[in-house]
């Protein structure tokens, strides 16, 4: 696919959006000179902007390329997508206002701020900051993988994967350097509208492309051709994507969603707690659109789509390239670029602000606000480079990479939840829990034990359970004088 048209459309979409986003940001806000403005939008986001940034974070390439690929390769396990947003919102309705309140009260900018202030342990902020950055980099890897695929689709496979990945990282850095969260909010809005239009457009014509009579007929035929695709464990029972897997993975995703530093931080950018609550009502509905993503995955299966090297992340791109006109390919490529660039830039932004504030600042307290922003910007290059390296060394599905990012960030969940729910939880407990959780997740012995005791469980949920248990045990065993501050629990309406 080296026609000029898809490339031209793709570039036009990306550049057009960036320019419009910049204009929008200039229009809306003064110069970005403080960390507060750059990273949390000055805490002034109303319902609309908040919705779009939020949706922008939830509906990423993980959803579009990852889930369609999962539907194509496995079938029913792709239903995980239907649970991810709704459960996160049900939980977020309670959790996000707590986070927002803590943020408002202490003037928090990052998640690590929360840990160091709530647990009165600046060292814990440093450790949590680094842990958060690690999980964010894995998440950036997802976006870079997607961008790499799009670049190779539009520019031709002559472009090697390493070059494409580097190009993708450069594009992402360029995007984020131009401005902070405010322009990302606008770009997120554009990409959501584009994505819906595109997905609907592809879906309306999909039946025709694969010889079915209607959208529903695509599902009917796929089930006739592949009995068992519609129920777990799907097409490849040996992959272990069973009921147990769906239940545990869905829980782990729900528990981890707001723990991602950028999502945690996003709570601070809302104007008030009510903005957040109202958002939680409508956000799940948006995830009904995964119906179309599954439809496209099933249609690709019917059409016999074979992506290069059997790479399931490339199924949707390959299917559209095979069956749709070049302009549709360009539209898809441009949309996927935005789908990767917008969240990717927000992820890098969050990682960088944590690094500047919570890792560097404790060591160099005399650093000014402007200098902090510059340190953060430099750190982003390093993080992007690590993500490029991860992208090139992994050939897993985007869903698998996504779940490992959730597993990584889930390590911080006990510290957040227990922080709000249990006044005795303390810094030593949180640290011990982190260590135990990482051992379960990363050490070969820990992994083996978890897999033997909890077969087919999402490994992240098992590690989170171990982590939480250790936090409780250690906190309960420590003297009561080490108690955390209790300010931001229950009664605090402001």
């Amino acid at each position, binding site marked *: 696919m080296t026609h000029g048209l898809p490339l031209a459309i793709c570039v036009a979409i990306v550049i057009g959006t960036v320019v419009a986003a910049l204009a929008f940001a200039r229009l809306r806000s003064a110069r970005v000179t403080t960390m507060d403005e750059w990273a949390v939008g000055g805490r002034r986001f109303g319902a609309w902007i908040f919705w779009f940034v939020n949706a922008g974070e939830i509906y990423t390439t993980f959803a579009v390329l990852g889930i369609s690929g999962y539907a194509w390769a496995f079938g029913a396990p792709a239903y995980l997508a239907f649970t991810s947003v709704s459960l996160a*919102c*049900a*939980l977020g309705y309670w959790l996000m206002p707590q986070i927002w309140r803590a943020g408002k009260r202490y003037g928090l900018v990052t998640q690590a701020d929360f840990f160091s202030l709530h647990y009165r342990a600046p060292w814990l902020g440093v450790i949590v900051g680094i842990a958060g950055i690690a999980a964010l980099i894995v998440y950036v890897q997802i976006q870079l993988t997607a961008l790499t695929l799009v670049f190779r689709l539009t520019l031709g496979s002559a472009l090697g994967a390493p070059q494409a990945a580097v190009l993708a990282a450069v594009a992402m850095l360029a995007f984020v350097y131009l401005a902070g969260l405010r322009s990302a909010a606008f770009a997120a809005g554009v990409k959501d509208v584009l994505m819906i239009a595109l997905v609907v457009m592809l879906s309306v014509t999909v039946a025709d492309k694969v010889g079915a009579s209607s959208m529903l007929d695509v599902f009917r035929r796929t089930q006739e051709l592949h009995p068992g695709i519609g129920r*777990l464990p799907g097409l490849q029972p040996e992959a272990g994507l069973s*009921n147990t897997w769906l239940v545990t993975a869905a829980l782990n995703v729900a528990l981890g969603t707001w723990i991602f530093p950028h999502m945690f931080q996003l709570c601070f950018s809302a104007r008030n707690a009510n903005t957040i609550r109202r958002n939680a009502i409508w956000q799940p509905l948006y995830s009904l659109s995964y119906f179309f993503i599954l439809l496209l995955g099933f249609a690709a299966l019917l059409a016999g789509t074979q992506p290069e090297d059997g790479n399931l992340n490339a199924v949707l791109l390959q299917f559209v390239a095979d069956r749709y006109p070049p302009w549709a390919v360009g539209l898809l490529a441009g949309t996927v670029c935005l789908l990767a660039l917008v969240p990717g830039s927000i992820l890098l932004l969050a990682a960088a602000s944590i690094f500047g504030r919570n890792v560097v600042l404790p060591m160099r307290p005399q650093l000014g606000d402007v200098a902090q922003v510059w340190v953060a910007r430099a750190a982003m290059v390093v993080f992007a480079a690590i993500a490029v390296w991860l992208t090139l060394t992994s050939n897993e599905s985007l869903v698998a990479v996504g779940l490992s990012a959730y597993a990584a960030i889930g390590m911080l969940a006990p510290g957040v939840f227990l922080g709000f729910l249990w006044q005795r939880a303390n810094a030593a407990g949180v640290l011990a829990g982190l260590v135990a959780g990482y051992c379960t997740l990363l050490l070969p012995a820990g992994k083996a034990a978890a897999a033997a005791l909890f077969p087919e469980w999402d490994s992240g949920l098992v590690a989170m359970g171990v982590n939480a248990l250790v936090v409780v045990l250690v906190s309960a065993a420590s003297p009561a004088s080490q108690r955390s501050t209790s300010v931001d629990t229950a009664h605090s309406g402001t």
Partner: protein
Amino acid sequence: MSRSNRHRWLLLAPFAWQVALAPLVNDVVAQPFGLPFPMVWQMLGILVTTACIAIVYRIDRRDASSDDSA
């Protein structure tokens, strides 16, 4: 948030629907509109979630007209 928060338990209903009951509906062979039943179930779960959160929000707003204006 001084008044009863019992209605907040409703926020667990989506978990019951989409997680706890998911294994039970996995074996249902019916195909509403030609779609696999477990898929329809999960999509309905999204509607259930929005309904539950909306109800909780309503009650919260009614209760909190005095405090929480932030």
